[in-house]
């Protein structure tokens, strides 16, 4: 095909040093927003707990020791919570893990400590523009820059991702639900020779056929009347048999 169809999915193909291509499924801004919210709640909860603990320490010892520890933990949580979790073995903060995401290099490998530092320190820039709540003096980071960058780049990268050369992907690649066929069909050789794309379309149809209703299957195979020479259930069975033939002979 001289002009391949534009891609509709969020899969990115990456070639590894081993010479093989893998597919990574990019995570969009919405699901990353959910993960961020969960992390925000966790960080808030930790800070609350730590504050209460150190307040008690200050109360008992009548010293400002507790205030110091509180400031220190505030500093570490706000700057290193994401860094340490993303550098860790799972490659994801608890929020990202809950959303089944992880941070990787474009090759799919785990990120280095330096990359974790860059992508998370850049959050400060990604969080712009801040929304000022009039009167209260509260400033809420809107993450507008991050969203804009995500929408303008092919791989949903915010500024921190661009600078650190990292991607946020789904931990497990998307697996279309497939239902194995109970009865073995008789193989049927396609009446014309098919291109590679057409062959894989037939096989993918048959892999997923179990997840659709009979009507839907027939509706789809009716388009293949020129290949099968039949419509309705007969046509559908013929397509399934051809897929079976392709499996056995290709």
């Amino acid at each position, binding site marked *: 095909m001289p002009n391949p169809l534009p891609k509709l999915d969020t899969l990115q193909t990456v070639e*590894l040093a081993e010479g093989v291509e893998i597919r990574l499924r990019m995570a969009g801004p919405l699901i990353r927003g959910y993960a961020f919210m969960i992390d925000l709640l966790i960080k808030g909860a930790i800070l609350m707990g730590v504050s209460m603990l150190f307040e008690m320490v200050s109360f008992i010892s009548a010293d400002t020791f507790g205030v110091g520890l509180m400031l220190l933990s505030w500093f570490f949580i706000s700057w290193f919570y994401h860094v340490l979790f993303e550098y860790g073995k799972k490659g994801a903060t608890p929020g990202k893990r809950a959303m089944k995401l992880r941070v990787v290099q474009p090759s799919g490998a785990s990120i280095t400590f330096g990359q974790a530092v860059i992508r998370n*320190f850049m959050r400060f820039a990604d969080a712009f523009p801040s929304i000022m709540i009039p009167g209260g003096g509260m400033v809420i980071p809107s993450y507008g820059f991050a969203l804009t960058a995500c929408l303008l780049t092919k791989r949903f990268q915010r500024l921190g991702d661009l600078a650190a050369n990292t991607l946020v992907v789904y931990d497990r690649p998307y697996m279309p639900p497939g239902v194995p066929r109970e009865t073995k069909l008789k193989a049927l050789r396609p009446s014309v020779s098919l291109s590679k794309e057409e062959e894989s379309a037939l096989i993918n149809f048959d892999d997923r056929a179990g997840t659709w209703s009979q009507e839907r299957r027939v509706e789809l195979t009716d388009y293949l009347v020129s290949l099968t020479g039949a419509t309705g259930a007969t046509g559908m069975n013929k397509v399934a048999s051809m897929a079976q033939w392709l499996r056995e002979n290709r």
Partner: protein
Amino acid sequence: MNRNTFEITNRPKWQEFSLLLDDQDKRSPTMDATHLPHLFRSVCNDLALAEHRRYGHQLCGELNELVIRGYKHMHSAPATSWAGMTYFLAVQFPQLVRKEWKLFWVCTLSFLIPYLILWISGRYEISWIQSILGASGMTSMSEMYGDTDTSVHLRAEYGSNFMMFCFYIWNNVRIDFQIFAGGILGGVGTIFFLVFNGIHIGASAGYVDYACSPEKFYSFVAGHSSFELIGMVIAGIAGMKMGMAVLHPGRLNRSDALIKGGKESLPFVYGAAFLTTLAAVIEGFWSAQPIAPSIKYTVGGAFWALLIAYFLFAGRRYRAT
């Protein structure tokens, strides 16, 4: 070979590989992993074959996942060692700062010029400083460095040394990180924070000359000023490396330049955080001690001389890396 025989022949190998990876994910792996690389390459081969022969989503997806999991184990970054960190501080870091001497001066002057303007302006016209510090800023400056009684321990009313040390970490290291992060906005954020700090610190110094006890102020800042100011300038270099990657990518395209800029700015981020942490230690535990100002000035001067010598001479004998 068709899809079914392919799957039947190779399935045991995939299962073995998957089990081995599960085991490696554990805290203390128990299985012998010496043939993991061999298995990994073999699974890579299977994936390539399956993709080429279009064996369908199910099989290709499964192999794809196996290869990604294997890749993560085969290509993980080596851990940093103490020796590496020492070498970084003793040799690489001063070398890198010398190499970026242009950006060093850009950042230094971005801070120094507004600082000097504000500081000197206090001798002629105090209203600039007054409007910058505001009423609350002036009150707190007077409380800290006022003429009242120089013998009073500075920390008596401002909390313990440890608390102040934590405060300086929280505040000053954070400022360094912000200076760095602001760089990605074309360097504007970096320059903004440097100029802002120059204005604010210059105004404070000018106000002390005007209304407080300069000796109290300068003997307080003498000890940690070298580490803190140079740390801030180095955070500025880190930010400007990012900024220059956006503004002037050279022969690279912008996204590659940004990645390169990010990598090259990291040593400066680490160095700035290190220097500013040292400054917080000194500021927390030394600067406010009731010690004669002459000793504080001597120590402060020695720190400045030491730090300048470090950046001028350390690591000269080693080849640049």
